[in-house]
């Protein structure tokens, strides 16, 4: 493919500088040729390389991106503008997003990235990935070069040439059935040809976090099929083997993403984002503590198992996400009856469902003026500790059977706003809260907290009414 000259005109676009000349495509800045047409945002043109020597994958990759990009919305993907015909001049014009790729960031300095910064980057990437999964699309080629960080800290995903949209025919199925993806970041199930599991993207995020944390690659850069198959049975060396000072919670998160069995990874990118946003709430297991690689014996056993491993095609990404909700419960901390607390627990148990992947976030909102900087008993930590203890006690009777639970004390003068902001920021699927803060009679006259939350919530809200049994018990018991 020869380069396009700056100033050339193609279908109403004027070619600008070449931003990137890679093996797969050239990318140019473009503007509308017609000067009366205002650009809604800066634009770039991607022209795939597809002359003689370039592989068929480039052509199919172009077709796939041409198919999927126009269907995607939201701030985590570049906006689609126009496309050229494959038979004439194939190109895609899309939004040019200002920012720096993670690859650029890795190349720029060899300095270790702080755990807090890794968590921040990882949470931003996971949120972008989750927004893609909610649109029934799996990226399947996530790597540092395909993740762009905007100046505001949010992430944008690039290059959908290997992606899979559950509502469209998979143009990549069959012809390149085996191992479509970049050898460093590809998930084990992709190695054996499974396309469309959102947890494959979680694996790739794990590899990127591993790179950021250690500057090493968890599974190297295999060049053969056998080399790629290693990740079906092999554990990555624990990051703390390379950098013992890394916190256990970070290793816990990274190694959970890198589990060879998809079912052992985070069930959705929202769960991963949740953990990375609340490192203090992560339950560290042996996975987070280990500092030595898995031994030969354990690997050998798993190697035998992997030889016969059978992968099931996965259901729709959005359906898979629905099955592993993040349930948030707002627990009041004053003027609250036992019956209300009991009823909230009942509602939470029901909302968690029967699936093991659900996560519970217990939240209470305290007045911003509650803590003081001078008085030791009322210091911020002491106050928070008091309320965290209250939340833990409330949650104790719940049968969580291994589900993740976390506790959060939010400080705000506006309870409804604090709950709404928390729910939106953490991709909460269901909010459970008491129906009445000032008695149901008042609700008709006042926009009370539950009403405000129910009206503006980004998800389903369950308003819990006090359960009857308590009152019946009280009236039935002999005075």
């Amino acid at each position: 493919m020869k380069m396009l000259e700056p100033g050339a005109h193609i279908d109403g676009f004027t070619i600008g500088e070449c931003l990137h000349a890679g093996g797969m495509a050239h990318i140019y800045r473009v503007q509308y040729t017609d000067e009366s047409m205002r650009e809604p945002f800066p634009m770039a043109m991607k022209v795939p390389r597809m002359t003689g020597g370039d592989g068929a994958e480039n052509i199919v990759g172009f077709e796939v991106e041409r198919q999927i990009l126009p269907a995607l919305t939201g701030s985590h993907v570049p906006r689609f503008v126009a496309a050229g015909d494959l038979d004439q001049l194939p190109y895609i014009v899309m939004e040019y997003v200002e920012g720096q790729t993670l690859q650029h960031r890795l190349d720029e300095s060899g300095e270790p990235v702080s755990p807090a910064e890794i968590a921040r980057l990882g949470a931003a990437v996971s949120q972008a990935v989750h927004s893609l999964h909610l649109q029934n699309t799996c990226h399947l080629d996530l790597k540092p070069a395909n993740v762009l960080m905007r100046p505001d800290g949010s992430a944008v995903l690039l290059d959908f040439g290997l992606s899979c949209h559950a509502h469209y025919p998979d143009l990549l199925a069959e012809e390149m059935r085996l191992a479509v993806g970049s050898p460093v970041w590809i998930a084990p199930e992709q190695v054996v040809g499974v396309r469309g599991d959102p947890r494959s993207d979680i694996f790739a995020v794990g590899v990127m976090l591993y790179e950021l944390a250690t500057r090493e690659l968890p599974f190297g850069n295999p060049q053969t099929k056998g080399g790629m198959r290693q990740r079906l049975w092999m554990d990555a060396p624990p990051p703390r083997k390379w950098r013992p000072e890394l916190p256990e919670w970070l290793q816990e998160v990274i190694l959970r993403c890198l589990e060879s069995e998809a079912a052992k990874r985070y069930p959705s990118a929202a769960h991963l984002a949740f953990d990375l946003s609340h490192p203090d709430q992560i339950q560290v297991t042996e996975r987070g503590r280990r500092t030595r690689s898995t031994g030969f014996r354990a690997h050998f056993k798993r190697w035998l198992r992997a030889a016969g491993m059978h992968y099931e095609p996965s259901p729709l990404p959005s359906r898979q996400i629905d099955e592993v909700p993040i349930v948030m419960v707002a627990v009041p901390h004053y003027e609250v009856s036992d019956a209300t607390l009991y009823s909230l627990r009942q509602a939470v148990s029901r909302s968690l469902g029967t699936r093991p992947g659900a996560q519970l976030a217990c939240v209470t909102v305290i007045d911003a003026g509650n803590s003081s900087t001078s008085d030791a008993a009322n210091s911020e930590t002491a106050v928070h500790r008091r309320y965290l203890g209250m939340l833990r006690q409330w949650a104790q009777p719940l049968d969580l059977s291994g589900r993740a639970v976390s506790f959060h004390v939010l400080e705000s003068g506006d309870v409804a706003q604090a709950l709404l902001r928390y729910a939106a920021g953490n991709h909460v699927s269901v909010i459970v809260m008491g129906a009445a803060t000032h008695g149901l009679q008042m609700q008709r006259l006042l926009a009370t907290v539950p009403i405000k939350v129910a009206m503006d919530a980004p998800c389903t809200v369950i308003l819990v009414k006090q359960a009857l049994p308590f009152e019946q018990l009280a009236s039935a018991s002999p005075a």
Partner: protein
Amino acid sequence: MKLALLSDIHANLRALDACVAHATSEGASRFALLGDLVGYGPQPVQVLQRVRLLASAGAIVLKGNHDEMAVNPPSTAQALGEIGAAWTHAQLTAADRAYLDALPLSDTQGAVHLVHASANAPQKWQYVINEQLAAASLDAACEDPAVRYVFGGHVHEQTLYFMTATHKLMRFAPTPGVPIPLPASRRWLATVGSVGQPRDGKTQAMYAMFDLARAELTFHRVPYDHLAVAADLRAAGLPEFFAKRMEEGR
């Protein structure tokens, strides 16, 4: 330009009207009726009246196996469909029969080839139920080098087949209501489902809409009063199985 693809209406006027109304509201500029206008259903005469009206407005109308059977019903009816064919034959006027008899088996509009069953020997009424049979139909239609899309009915199922770069056919189950881009760089075959006789356990009528300018195909499901059709079938004294099938969509 949006082409509404309706097939296997099976004398179900309520379903036909619901699909035509839906397609019109979705901006259909032309209709194509891909055969099996009659058979099974209770209102063959009224359906043919509606079909002629659509045809006079530019609709493409093709012949299906049930249309052929209604013109020449088998003398000794065995299968249920054949009993229905004799009933339908008796309802139709001579003009209706002549109209059905004169319908073409297929039609080509630029890149689009339309046929009731398979483009490979359409008169054999072959069911396109798998990749091999879809490939045979697609290959036959693509002898005309301009053809990129084959749309048909006959199997009462909404399915999309697409040709990979290695000339292999892949099958895809579409989600109703989602526009699917079908770039002309590949070849595509779709069975658009049945307007009047769904058999996948759902009772909504099926049809598809092809947006030629955008090269996008959308499969649709349209709810309508299917229970009234079941009542009509019973009132007409047709086999009880026909009415039950209408109630359950099987």
